[in-house]
């Protein structure tokens, strides 16, 4: 496998890095404190075509392959300090991939242009109050009626939920079936009678991304709202989540690289006991581990990305990448705080925000424990 960026990919990455530093980073401390979705920055990202990358030009996209899309999100994670915004953007792209992979041609032609342009914000409604890691124990139902479906149930902690214009809602269509055949996916637009979004939930990190409830109460959607076929939801989700984990990991790996560079810079500049703190092994070994994890994370990420780019299955590779990179980032952020001592604990120096954001990465899109379960199952256990 060749992991080197092409000249075009490197050029795009450089553009994104400059863009993120100039346009997305100013004011991040205040935005994080306020916990408000930065709609103006969303528009700037849309103008940079960040949500259009992997979609066909015929459907309003820019037609890049998935590896290039991953390389761009990798650059974004490296340069952009707003992890909440990055995850909002990734959510949008993942919803688009769901439609592209599983929707019919009419749905792709109708929905992707507004998604790729960022004109409409998307969310995917999966998690429920009583089903997190046990995803498919969801209780939201979709009952057939008058050529369509009536949806009832509550989704919670949904990324982009409070600001969503269109949501992909997973619901049980056949409760008598076993897991694999009981769930379907529906597109529900904002304003649909019986569909409502809750207020943003206060949370520890990723504070510029909104998370909240999506509630369906006798919410009727017409038959063509079904994405994929009835009963296909679990297989569809299982496929999409491989793409999701790879794309999300791209941003996380970029973040890990940024934390590493910041730690190296600080360890060289900061003096204690008459010398740079980087000369102490208590510091340098932490940084060496970060460096090692960047190298290994890059192999894990692009191995999985190349497989998805070839339309191969990557359940193992995407879980390995998600588990390894998210845990590496969390540990690196914890070490970055420790390396800075008291300064690391102060909001002004921004490391504590990275730590708060990084903890979520070991929870969303499958906790580390669930990734380990997947890896173990695929090892034949």
């Amino acid at each position, binding site marked *: 496998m060749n992991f080197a960026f092409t000249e075009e990919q490197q050029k795009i990455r450089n553009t994104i890095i400059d863009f993120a530093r100039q346009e997305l980073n100013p004011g991040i401390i205040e935005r994080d404190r306020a916990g408000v979705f930065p709609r103006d920055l969303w528009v700037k990202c849309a103008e940079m075509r960040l949500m259009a990358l992997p979609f066909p030009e015929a459907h309003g996209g820019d037609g890049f392959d998935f590896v290039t899309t991953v390389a761009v999100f990798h650059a974004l994670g490296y340069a952009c300090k707003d992890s909440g915004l990055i995850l909002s953007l990734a959510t949008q792209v993942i919803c688009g991939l769901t439609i592209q*992979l*599983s929707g019919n041609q009419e749905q792709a032609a109708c929905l992707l242009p507004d998604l790729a342009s960022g004109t409409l914000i998307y969310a995917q409604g999966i998690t429920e109050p009583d089903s997190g890691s046990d995803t*498919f124990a969801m209780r939201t139902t979709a009952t057939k009626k008058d050529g369509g479906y009536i949806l009832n149930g509550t989704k919670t902690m949904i990324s982009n939920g409070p600001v969503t214009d269109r949501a992909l809602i997973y619901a049980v269509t056949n409760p008598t*079936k*076993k*897991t*694999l*055949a009981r769930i379907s996916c529906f597109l529900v637009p904002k304003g649909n009678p019986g569909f409502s979004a809750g207020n943003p939930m206060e949370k520890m990190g990723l504070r510029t991304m909104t998370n909240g409830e999506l509630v369906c109460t006798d919410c009727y959607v017409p038959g063509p709202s079904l994405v*994929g*076929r009835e*009963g*296909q939801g*679990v*297989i*569809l*989700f*299982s*496929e999409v989540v*491989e793409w999701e984990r790879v794309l999300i990991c791209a941003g996380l790996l970029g973040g890990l690289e940024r934390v590493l560079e910041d730690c190296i810079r600080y360890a060289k500049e900061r003096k204690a006991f008459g010398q740079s703190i980087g000369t102490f092994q208590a510091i340098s070994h932490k940084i060496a581990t970060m460096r090692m994890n960047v190298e290994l994370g890059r192999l894990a990420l692009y191995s999985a990305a190349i497989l998805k780019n070839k*339309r*191969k*299955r990557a*359940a*193992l590779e995407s879980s390995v990448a998600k588990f390894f990179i998210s845990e590496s980032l969390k540990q690196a952020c914890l070490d970055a705080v420790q390396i800075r001592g008291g300064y690391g604990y102060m909001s002004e120096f921004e490391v504590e925000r990275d730590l708060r954001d990084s903890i979520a990465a070991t929870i969303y899109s499958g906790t580390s424990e669930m990734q380990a379960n*997947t890896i173990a*199952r*695929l090892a*034949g256990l």
Partner: protein
Amino acid sequence: MNTCNTIRDFITHEMLHDSLKTPLGDDDQLVDSGIIDSLGVMNLLSFLEEKFSIQIPDDDLIPENFASLSTITALVERQMAR
């Protein structure tokens, strides 16, 4: 080993985890019995696509196609004939 037996062998060893069980029948229900679940189907897909050098299109990723050894074999043979 023919297509059906190759798939049977994989499911028996990778999903049943119990070689002492009654041999898997061609029409035994794999989805309804829970033998093939969400992760199992992705594992199976990975195996099928690599072993038989096929790519199963998204349209065919429906539970009915994984209901039994017979339906999985038919799915694979349709793709091999393309």
